[in-house]
């Protein structure tokens, strides 16, 4: 009863705000996708050395099951899941484990990992496992299959997908949303996956519908990928309730909460999860991967990423083995001149790389390379003139202006208590529009980490 009322209120809200098919606020950064969105996915060569951090997902690190010097076959289990919020790791290449030692990661931290030498003459054939048949499998068996395949959110968050698909006791899922928004500039990974792997996607949706018990599936696509939307609409299978919805282009529509609002007109409560509004959101590449791997019982050992940016000569969308060192990848695509900034992920939320010795992991959705000329970071920071551009950009309707001033004066508690700091998911819209060039996102990231630290102690 209460739930029903709440739903009704939300839909009234949606009508009142006249924002059907999109969310409040947001920004329009230049898309820069035309360099790669027409290029088909190509297989990347195997790097002679593969560097694999054992933990490539959020949650408990996996447990190694191999030893130094051991020979492994492509697709073989290297580390098993340690607990429920954890996934196993599979060998991306056939080769020999040179050593088990700390490896560098994008966060700068050294974490336990594996150095795997690819066998030069190997055929790199994949080993076959025990498939999961979606006709007969129970939801739990599907979830186990997803976990065994080592699948995490490929959009960037790297949260174990099976844990997300698990519907908590007492809740139910009505809508399964397949996230094909890809609102980050430069990246075309999902776009290409939708154009080239429709069958894998639909197969993935079959698994997902069954495991979540959702009544329907919606593939959300932004209007700048109309070709993908048309392509998928033309191939919709009859056996599952799936539709394609095109939404206007706006950043950060690819964020779970924003997408739910855009497609369903509901708002995920502050501090809540999509399941609180009876929805589950899965990235389209993740869906395709589920559809590709589960029938064969394989583990994830490669993924599609976009390597692009002004510093790259051979821009493209590549199917690349996980663990490929960044240095090798950049050599292969021939970066030109003196590169100055490399991001893993898109330029809005991606992380700047400090060390080329790190490797591509499951959560890497793209690599964007800038050279000296392209980076024109404003060097002068003006005081906040309260122009309100950030307030009108924030998709969560926070007040970044006030938050920024408070952060500058280290009033972290007030930020969290009065101004919903902890809701911020660092999409970067505020920093993007700020005419005073205030590093708002950095302020908030720092403030959040301090607030978390204070809460913990």
């Amino acid at each position, binding site marked *: 009863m209460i739930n029903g009322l709440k739903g009704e209120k939300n839909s009234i809200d949606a009508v009142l705000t006249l924002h059907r098919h999109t969310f409040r606020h947001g920004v329009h950064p230049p898309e820069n996708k035309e360099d790669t969105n027409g290029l088909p996915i190509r297989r990347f060569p195997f790097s002679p050395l593969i560097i694999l951090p054992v933990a490539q997902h959020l949650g408990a690190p996996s447990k190694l099951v191999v030893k130094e010097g051991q020979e492994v076959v492509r697709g073989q289990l290297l580390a098993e899941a340690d607990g429920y919020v954890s996934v196993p790791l599979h060998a991306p290449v056939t080769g020999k484990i040179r050593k088990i030692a700390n490896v560098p990661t994008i966060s700068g931290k050294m974490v336990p990992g594996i150095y795997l030498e690819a066998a030069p003459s190997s055929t790199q054939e994949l080993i076959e496992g025990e498939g999961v048949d979606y006709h007969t499998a129970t939801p739990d068996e599907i979830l186990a299959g997803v976990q065994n395949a080592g699948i995490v959110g490929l959009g960037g968050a790297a949260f174990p997908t099976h844990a997300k698909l698990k519907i908590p006791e007492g809740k139910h899922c009505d809508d399964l949303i397949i996230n094909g928004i890809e609102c980050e500039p430069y990246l075309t990974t999902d776009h290409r996956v939708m154009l080239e792997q429709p069958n894998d996607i639909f197969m993935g949706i079959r698994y997902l519908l069954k495991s979540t018990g959702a009544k329907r599936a919606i593939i959300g696509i932004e209007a700048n990928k109309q070709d993908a939307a048309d392509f998928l609409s033309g191939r919709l299978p009859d056996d599952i309730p799936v539709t394609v919805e095109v939404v206007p282009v706006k950043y950060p529509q690819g964020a779970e909460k924003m997408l739910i609002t855009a497609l369903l007109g509901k708002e995920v409560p502050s501090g809540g999860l999509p399941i609180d509004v009876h929805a589950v959101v899965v990235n389209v590449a993740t869906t395709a991967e589920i559809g590709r791997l589960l029938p064969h019982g394989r583990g994830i050992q490669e993924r599609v990423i976009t390597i692009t940016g002004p510093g790259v000569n051979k821009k493209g969308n590549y199917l690349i083995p996980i663990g490929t060192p960044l240095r090798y990848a950049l050599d292969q695509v021939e970066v030109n001149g003196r590169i100055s900034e490399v991001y893993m992920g898109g330029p809005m939320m991606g992380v700047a790389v400090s060390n080329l010795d790190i490797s591509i992991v499951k959560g890497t959705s793209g690599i964007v390379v800038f050279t000296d000329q392209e980076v024109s970071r404003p060097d002068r920071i003006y*005081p906040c003139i309260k122009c309100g551009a950030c307030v009108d950009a924030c998709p969560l309707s926070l007040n970044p202006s006030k938050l920024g*001033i*408070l952060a*500058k*004066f280290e*009033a972290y508690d007030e930020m969290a208590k009065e101004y919903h700091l902890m809701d911020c998911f660092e999409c970067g819209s505020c920093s993007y529009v700020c005419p005073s060039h205030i590093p708002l996102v950095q302020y908030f990231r720092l403030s959040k980490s301090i607030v978390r630290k204070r809460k913990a102690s």
Partner: protein
Amino acid sequence: MNQESLSQIFINACLVNNFVLAYFLGICPFLGVSGKLGTATKMGGAVMFVMLISSICAYGIHALLVAVDAEFLQLISYIVVIASTVQLVEMFIKKMSPALFKALGIFLPLITTNCAILGLALFQTNKGYDFIQSIVYALGAGAGFTLALVLIAGFREQLEYAEVPKVIRGTILTLVIAGIMSLTFMGFSGLGTQ
């Protein structure tokens, strides 16, 4: 007898001749308590309440003094009665709501030495207001005091987070804002003459 209409008394006391910004009454609590909006509002409420009480007290005492022909005791009787009443109120609050007491802290006794309270009592007698006029006058003055306090507190709270030069922070800045507000309230002068 004073012929002023009630609305005119109220507007005069609240806006045109604002106790703080035009008469400089109650500056001490004004400087002290205007730092935080929450405290300012509470203080404003407290002052308004005390003003009302002292206005009533003063009216009664004045009548008494006139009756016994001892008007020369006006000042001392006013201040004594007001001071003790405030002290009673203070003790009462301390007993009933320690939180409120803590919030207003040392400023509750300072209400006693708030010129605005005594000034109100003296002015209403000087102007020869009757009982109802006195009460309206007290309400107007209290509202004006609260208004000034709240407006300044809004600024001060905002300016907590501003790169105000160090020497200016605090009293000096508050005085400057008060000065500008005082100029601004001049815009209200003459209200009601047309």
